[in-house]
């Protein structure tokens, strides 16, 4: 049994499938009058957020509360963190408070790995720098499975700023483990070196979105920050949108059954047009709902038993 969830690489196919299956049961709770399960009664989950991410924090908070855990939100703003307390001292503080799990969002890649060395409880990576965001990958996989019935054998195009994307890294790892074929699409400046060797052999890279779309069951659009053009990753937002943005005509090159995903928040008009975002192919709203179920499953898996 895994103790921490730091990376998509922590999950083998059996564990990942178990999380998705558990999430499916957790999802039924959302439809009940009493949206609560007693599984984590008396357990304390700390949301330690060094970056503003209301969406992710709320999703983890709802997940923990639906499992009856006590939730403490510890945000960098207005806390001792802002006064320069080290991550290690913060970890020791959380330890003293009896945190059974720490859900951490941090701008520095690898911060959750460091934290895991310093606390006894479980650490869940809720996004670290430009590294990983494993629960996002799990909710994406869950969404694909519920829309398309399977993950093995799917062709998934992940499009955009792969270089800076923690969502992309976790998805490549998890989807490959579950048997999907991932193609990373973007301008060469935004595709990191040796990505296939680094993450999963069999991962393809393409610079041509139009060529990839007709063979894709899933298109996952990544958020692209306009500021990247100031670093010469691409010449202008307009050129980026023209070459790598998903608009209506491009969407119609997809097979009939294909779905369009986005981890949010979207830059409408940049990587995705409103027509696509609001189309029936879009799973963007479902992804948010599925996030709570998947995070319930993860917290239950890590904290629901005696896994020491």
């Amino acid at each position, binding site marked *: 049994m895994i103790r921490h969830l730091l990376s998509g690489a922590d999950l083998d196919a059996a564990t990942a499938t178990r999380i998705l299956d558990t999430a499916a049961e957790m999802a039924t709770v959302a439809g009940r009058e009493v949206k*609560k*399960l007693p599984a984590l009664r008396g357990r304390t989950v700390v949301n330690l957020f060094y970056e503003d991410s209301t969406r992710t924090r709320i999703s983890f908070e709802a997940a923990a509360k639906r499992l009856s855990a006590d939730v403490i939100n510890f945000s960098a703003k207005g806390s001792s963190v802002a006064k320069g307390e080290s991550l290690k001292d913060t970890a020791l503080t959380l330890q003293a408070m009896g945190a059974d799990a720490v859900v951490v969002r941090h701008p520095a890649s690898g911060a959750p790995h460091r934290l895991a060395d310093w606390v006894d409880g479980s650490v869940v990576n809720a996004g670290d720098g430009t590294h990983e965001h494993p629960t996002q990958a799990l909710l994406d996989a869950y969404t694909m499975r519920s829309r398309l019935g399977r993950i093995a054998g799917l062709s998934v195009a992940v499009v955009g700023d792969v270089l800076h994307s923690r969502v992309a890294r976790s998805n490549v790892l998890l989807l490959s483990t579950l048997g999907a074929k991932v193609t990373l699409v973007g301008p060469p400046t935004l595709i990191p070196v040796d990505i296939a060797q680094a993450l999963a052999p069999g991962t393809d890279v393409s610079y041509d979105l139009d060529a990839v779309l007709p063979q894709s069951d899933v298109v996952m659009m990544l958020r692209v920050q306009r500021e990247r053009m100031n670093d010469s990753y691409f010449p202008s937002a307009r050129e980026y949108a023209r070459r790598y943005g998903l608009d209506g005509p491009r969407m119609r090159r997809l097979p009939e059954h294909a779905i369009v995903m986005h981890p949010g928040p979207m830059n409408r008009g940049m990587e995705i047009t409103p027509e696509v975002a609001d189309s029936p192919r879009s799973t963007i709203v479902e992804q948010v709902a599925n996030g709570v179920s998947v995070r319930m499953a993860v917290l239950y898996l890590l904290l629901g*038993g005696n896994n020491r």
Partner: protein
Amino acid sequence: MAYPPAARSSTAPQPSVKVILTSADVQRVVDRIAHQILEKTQGAQQTVLLGIPTRGAPLARRLAARISAFEGVDVPVGVLDITLYRDDLRRHATRAIGPTELPAGGIDGKRVVLVDDVLFSGRTVRAALDALNDVGRPASVQLAVLVDRGHRELPIRADYVGKNIPTSLAESVKVTLAETDGADEVKLYGGDR
């Protein structure tokens, strides 16, 4: 809950095994419980059978089938997974959870008959009562079990019992069913009789 026999090595002395109910016995017992449910529920009106996994679920389906055969009444059947309500979650590695499937009409205002294979400490039933509480508000709750082996740790009793088996704590009772294990049988393992 039924408990599997303790793992044995080939050199250890063979613990005693005793068949308590044969396949034919199990069928007769299920038929009797079906009759009793009909009797005590005015012909199974406003009644829902909820099986507790693993073996309570097929037992509930069998009871519904027998009730239908005897009186032509279709009793709604569901499954109630109680994993997340157990009081011993933290004593074991994380348990996989199973599906909870309520019948289309729900359970509000209904008479719910919980169905399980073995009644032992009563903790499973307590968990099931808690779980029920979160999924609806039945008018009343009853309990049907194939075997009652005693040793209750909570003030819980069954409304329908297939067979009472006096046991010692050193013994274990194992129920197998055709649906889950390939054959119907109830065996008593252990002690050193």
